[in-house]
């Protein structure tokens, strides 16, 4: 008797409770104490199975585990980066490769589609026709390419006309699907109200609605209606598929449909069933045409070719620019700037000595195409030794008997010239910029007619006379302090003056000029003025005697003393004898 039993239990309850407390402890601590040593074993025995059972039961294990796994992964990534990278490394490469390949092939496919749609004659014709027909281009393309295509599928709650779910071929048109489904329901209601029920007493309902472009197929179940919008010639199998799907949905969602209160979320999962209805069939011609995306490849190749051509040209022009830098090494040429202008031209600004190698020649020698170079050239005078040599060489064209020997800074001329030619050459060489040691350069030239000057030309004679006068005038003889003795150097200079003086006198007589040599003695400021005056006269006299001794006529030599030249800075320089040549016209005398 159940009532009896329950009465007994309630009577014995306090005693049982007491017994339990004795056996198990006040808070079951005897039991837990007994189990504790074995707890690990016991739990380990059933741990995996328990997890699985609980997961199967309500899926809560997953929720509990997820944050733990997240934390563990985070910890590993933060603290054991190396190992983690090691685990992932083998798969990362293939994942990246795969996604890049997928991206590229999709990109090529899309580009080709775009090109075919916009560039081919067919694409343009279709665009035109679509415009004439007043339908969007995409729809026109679909109608041309597909025999039929299910564009959109709606699942509608039959009683309320509310949208449960919808899928579409391209995701754009589904925004107002809820309004469309309500409107469809209203139209269906309108139809069933407007026409009498059929013989079986069932309501009239829409089955197929046809427009120019669209066919709406309506398949009604007891609680839900499936509507498909189809373009093109719809075959019966689409309607069959819809029928199957609407039945399947009723089977799967019977409960949710019955309890529907406006919340469409339980039907979010029926996407897959609806997707099955999005069928299409390509036209045969369109099917055949699905060949390689050659147009995209062609464009790609063209781009690649163009890019490599550009790169090649760029590389070429850059290598020219680099080579032109070397022009700076060339004597007499100074590089101002060189840079690339686009991929065709080089801008080159240089300074060039007229005696340096011509730029165009240099470019030619270095295999740089001349038309590519836009050259701006300005002249300058170079003091480089090779250019100086070149200048001298160009002078020597007039003197075939003279040859240039030596290189670099030290070079000399050798050969034989007449006195006059030598003078001319000397004058010309002196004018050349950058040449300092004219005397040394000309030292090795022999004068062929040094003995007898055969000069008739008046101006030449005058030039020669002036030359010699200036040579003598620029000569001086130095003395030691308080001395009138001639040093060996002084004697050598005096011998030269004597020979020059002799030839000067010869020339002067030809030019009918009277020549007089003034020999000016001077002294420094040491000693009294009167003593120094005497000293300076003595020095002049000594020089005069020496010159006379070397063969100069005494009557042409006038020795005078000017005493102290009081120039503190001159120092020893003041103890010297200077020369001055005076010319007068002989006829005037």
């Amino acid at each position, binding site marked *: 008797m159940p009532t009896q039993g329950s009465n007994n239990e309630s009577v014995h309850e306090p005693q049982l409770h007491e017994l339990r407390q004795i056996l198990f402890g006040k808070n079951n601590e005897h039991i837990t104490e007994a189990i504790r040593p074995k707890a690990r074993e016991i739990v380990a025995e059933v741990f995996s199975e328990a997890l699985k059972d609980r997961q199967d039961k309500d899926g809560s294990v997953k929720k509990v585990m997820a944050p733990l796994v997240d934390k563990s992964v985070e910890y590993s990534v933060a603290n054991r980066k190396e190992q983690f990278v090691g685990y992932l490394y083998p798969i990362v490469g293939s994942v990246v490769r795969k996604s890049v390949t997928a991206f590229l092939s999709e990109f090529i496919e899309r580009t080709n589609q775009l090109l075919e749609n916009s560039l081919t004659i067919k694409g343009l014709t279709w665009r035109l026709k679509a415009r004439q027909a007043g339908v969007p281009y995409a729809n026109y393309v679909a109608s041309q390419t597909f025999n039929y295509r299910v564009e959109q599928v709606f699942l509608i709650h039959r009683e*309320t006309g509310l949208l449960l779910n919808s899928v579409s071929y391209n995701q754009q048109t589904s925004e107002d699907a809820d309004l469309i489904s309500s409107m469809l329901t209203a*139209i269906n209601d309108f139809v069933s109200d407007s026409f009498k029920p059929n013989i079986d007493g069932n309501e009239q309902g829409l089955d197929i609605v046809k427009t120019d472009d669209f066919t709406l197929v309506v398949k009604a179940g007891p609680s839900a209606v499936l509507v498909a919008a189809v373009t093109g010639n719809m075959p019966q199998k689409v309607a069959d598929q819809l029928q199957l799907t609407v039945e399947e949905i009723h089977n799967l969602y019977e409960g949710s449909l019955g309890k529907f209160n*406006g919340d469409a979320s339980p039907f979010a999962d029926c996407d897959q069933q609806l997707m099955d209805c999005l069928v299409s069939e390509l036209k045969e011609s369109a099917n055949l045409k699905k060949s390689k995306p050659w147009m995209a490849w062609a464009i790609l190749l063209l781009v690649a070719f163009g890019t490599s051509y550009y790169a090649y040209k760029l590389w070429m022009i850059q290598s020219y620019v680099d080579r032109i830098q070397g022009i700076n090494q060339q004597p007499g040429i100074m590089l101002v700037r060189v840079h690339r202008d686009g991929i065709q031209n080089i801008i080159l600004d240089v300074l060039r000595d007229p005696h340096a190698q011509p730029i165009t020649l240099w470019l030619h020698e270095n295999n740089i195409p001349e038309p590519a170079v836009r050259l701006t050239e300005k002249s300058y005078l170079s003091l480089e030794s090779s250019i100086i040599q070149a200048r001298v060489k160009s002078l020597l064209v007039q003197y075939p008997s003279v040859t240039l020997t030596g290189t670099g800074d030290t070079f000399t001329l050798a050969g034989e010239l007449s006195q006059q030619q030598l003078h001319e050459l000397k004058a010309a060489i002196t004018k050349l910029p950058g040449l300092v040691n004219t005397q040394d350069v000309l030292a090795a030239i022999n004068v062929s007619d040094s003995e007898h000057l055969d000069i008739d030309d008046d101006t030449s004679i005058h030039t020669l006379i002036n030359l010699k006068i200036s040579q003598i005038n620029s000569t001086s003889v130095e003395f030691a302090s308080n001395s009138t003795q001639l040093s060996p150097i002084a004697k050598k200079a005096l011998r030269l003056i004597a020979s020059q003086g002799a030839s000067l006198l010869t020339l002067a007589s030809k030019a009918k000029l009277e020549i007089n040599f003034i020999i000016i003695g001077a002294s420094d400021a040491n000693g009294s003025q009167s003593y120094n005056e005497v000293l300076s006269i003595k020095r002049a006299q000594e020089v005069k005697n020496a010159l006379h001794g070397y063969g100069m006529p005494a009557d042409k030599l006038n020795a005078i003393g000017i005493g102290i030249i009081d120039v503190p800075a001159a120092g020893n320089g003041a103890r010297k004898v200077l020369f001055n040549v005076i010319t007068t016209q002989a006829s005037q005398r």
Partner: protein
Amino acid sequence: MIQKKICLLGASGVGKTSLIKQFVEGIFSDKYLTSIGVKIDKKRVECQSDSVQLMLWDIEGIDRYCGFQPKYIRGAAAIIIVVDHTRSQSLIEGIEIFKLARDVSDVPAILAINKADLDSTWHWGEDELAELSHPFSHTFHTSAKSGANVELLFSTLAQKLLSEAEQ
């Protein structure tokens, strides 16, 4: 988000369509109304806990000579009876329509006394009106012109529907 179907009923010219226009976003032009007798718009109303998308069925003006299309009310979560307080007739007709609708559906009904921006010219006292509006769950004095109480009407409705759905 849940969706609910709401039907607006009322005599011709009481301002059902204007009332909805105050409130909604739509894609169908008004000419649907005259061709099949119903125009549908939608409006999403945000409530504190959730949001409700109202599918508003604007059903063509009904008068005593014209039949009633009970199918349009099928599946509705609520109906709104719209009357015009400048015309006594519209109230009588509205009550009649309400009775007809009650025959096919027992969902909550709301009475919207429209054109509140104009002076009342009907001959109903406050007591009589209270008596008449007794079967309605709510009564609002609305104006489609100024927008007065329109927002309130629909948000009250949405709140009510939402709390029903949560139960």
